C-alpha cells in the first residue's frame, strides 16, 4: 500500500511539474527575437538530450554489471534504459528537425549534431532490435551487454567523426536569465519522467522474466514421468 502511494505520489509530482513547466514556458519566458515562438522547443530539446546521454550511460553501467556478476536483473535494467534512450533520442531528433525547419528552412541537414543524434539513435535502436532475435536468455543478455558497452564506447568516436562535417548548428546560445531559469525548471519533469519510465520498464522486464521462468517450471512439472527401462522393470 505504501509503495503504491509513493508511486502515485511520484507520478502526480511529475505531472504537476510538467504542467508548471508548460505554464512557465508560455506565461513567463520571453519570446526570442530572431526565431520567435519556435525557439521554445529548445527548453524541451536540451533537457531531453542530456537525459538521453544519462540513459545510454545506464545501459553501459548495467551491461558492465551483467558481465561482471551474470545477474539477470542487470540485463533487465539495461533493456529498460535502452528503451528510455531510444524514446528520448527520438524526441531529440524530432524537436531538432522542427527547429531546423524553422531556422534553416529544411527538415534535415547533415550538421554534426543532427548526424550525431541520428547515429546515437541508430546504435540504440539496434540494441533493442537484436534482442528478440536471440532465443537463449543468457546468450541474449550476454550479446546485448557486449553490444551496450561497445556502443557506448562508440559515442565519443561518433562525436569526433561528425565534427568533420560542415556545421551550421549554433555552438552556444546566449540566454536571458528568465530563459535560463526555464531550461533549469524543464530539467525536473523530464528527468523525473525518465526515472519513472526506467523503473516501470525495469519492473515490467522483471515480471516478464519471472512469468516465463514459472511457465518453464510448469512445463517440466506437468511432463509425464519417464517410463521404466527394461532393466528397471526386471529389478
Amino acid at each position: 500500500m505504501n509503495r503504491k502511494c509513493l508511486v502515485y505520489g511520484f507520478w502526480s509530482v511529475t505531472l504537476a511539474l510538467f504542467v508548471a513547466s508548460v505554464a512557465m514556458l508560455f506565461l513567463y519566458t520571453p519570446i526570442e527575437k530572431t526565431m520567435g515562438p519556435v525557439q521554445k522547443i529548445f527548453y524541451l530539446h536540451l533537457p531531453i538530450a542530456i537525459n538521453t546521454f544519462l540513459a545510454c550511460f545506464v545501459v553501459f553501467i548495467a551491461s558492465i554489471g551483467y558481465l561482471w556478476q551474470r545477474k539477470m536483473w542487470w540485463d533487465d535494467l539495461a533493456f529498460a534504459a535502452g528503451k528510455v534512450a531510444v524514446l528520448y533520442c527520438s524526441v531529440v531528433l524530432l524537436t531538432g528537425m522542427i527547429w531546423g525547419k524553422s531556422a534553416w528552412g529544411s527538415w534535415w541537414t547533415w550538421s554534426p549534431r543532427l548526424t550525431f543524434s541520428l547515429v546515437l539513435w541508430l546504435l540504440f535502436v539496434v540494441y533493442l532490435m537484436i534482442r528478440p532475435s536471440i532465443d537463449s536468455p543468457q546468450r541474449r543478455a550476454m550479446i546485448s551487454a557486449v553490444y551496450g558497452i561497445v556502443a557506448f564506447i562508440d559515442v565519443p568516436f561518433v562525436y569526433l567523426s561528425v565534427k568533420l562535417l560542415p556545421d551550421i548548428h549554433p555552438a552556444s546560445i546566449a540566454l536571458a536569465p528568465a530563459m535560463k531559469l526555464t531550461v533549469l525548471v524543464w530539467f525536473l519533469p523530464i528527468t523525473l519522467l525518465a526515472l519513472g519510465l526506467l523503473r516501470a520498464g525495469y519492473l515490467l522486464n522483471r515480471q516478464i522474466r519471472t512469468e516465463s521462468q514459472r511457465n518453464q517450471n510448469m512445463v517440466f512439472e506437468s511432463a509425464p514421468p519417464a517410463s521404466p527401462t527394461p532393466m528397471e522393470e526386471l529389478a
Partner: protein
Amino acid sequence: MNRTLRQIGLLIQKDLRIEARGRQTIGLVIVLGILIIVVLGMGLGAGRPVSGFGATSILWVTYLFGGVLCFEKTMAVERFDDALAGLLIAPIDRGVIYASKLITNLLLIIGLALVVTPVAMTLFRFDLSEHPLAFFIVMSLGVTGFTAVGTLFSAAVSSTRLQGGLLAMLVFPLSLPVVIMSTQLMRKVFEEGVPLTSTDVATLCAFDMIFLIVSWLVFELVLEP
C-alpha cells in the same frame, strides 16, 4: 611471446588452408563486391567520372557488405562438426583465437580490396593519383577498425538463428563513426585539397586501438561452443 605468435600463425594457416581448399568465401565476396559496384554504377550514371571522395563511399559499401560475409564465413567453419569445441579445449588463450580470426578476416578483406578497387577504378574512372597515400592510409585504418568490431560480433552471433542479418545489424551502426570519419577525411583531401594531418591519422588509430583492446578483452566472454 614467440609461442603466442606461433599459435596465431598456426590458426591463421588453418583458416587459410580451409579457405584455399573450398575457395568459398573469397570467391563469394569478390563476386558480391563486383555486383555492388555494377549496381551502384548503373544507379549513379554510367560513364561519369567519380572523384576520390566518391570512390571512398562506393568502396566502403563494397567493403562493408563483403566484410560481413567474411566475418560470418570465418566463424561458420568453426561451427562445422563442432570444431569450435576442439579449439576451445586446446591449450591456447582466447585472445589468440581472436587475433587469428581478426588477421584472417583482414587478409580476406585485403583480397577483396585488391580485386574490387581496381575494378571500381576502371569502371568509375576514379582519380586517386593526387593523394594515393592518404587514400591508402585512411582506408586501411578504417577497414582495421571495422574488422576489429566485426570479428568480435561474428563470434557472438554465430550460435544464434539470425546469423547474417543480425551480424550486419550489429556491425554497421558500430562502424558508422569510422565510415563517416574516412569519407569526410577523403572529402577534405580530394575536394578541398587539405592534406591529411597527423591528428586525423591519430584519431583513426585511436579508434582502432580502443576497439581492438575492448574486443580482445570481451572476446573470451562471447565465445561459446
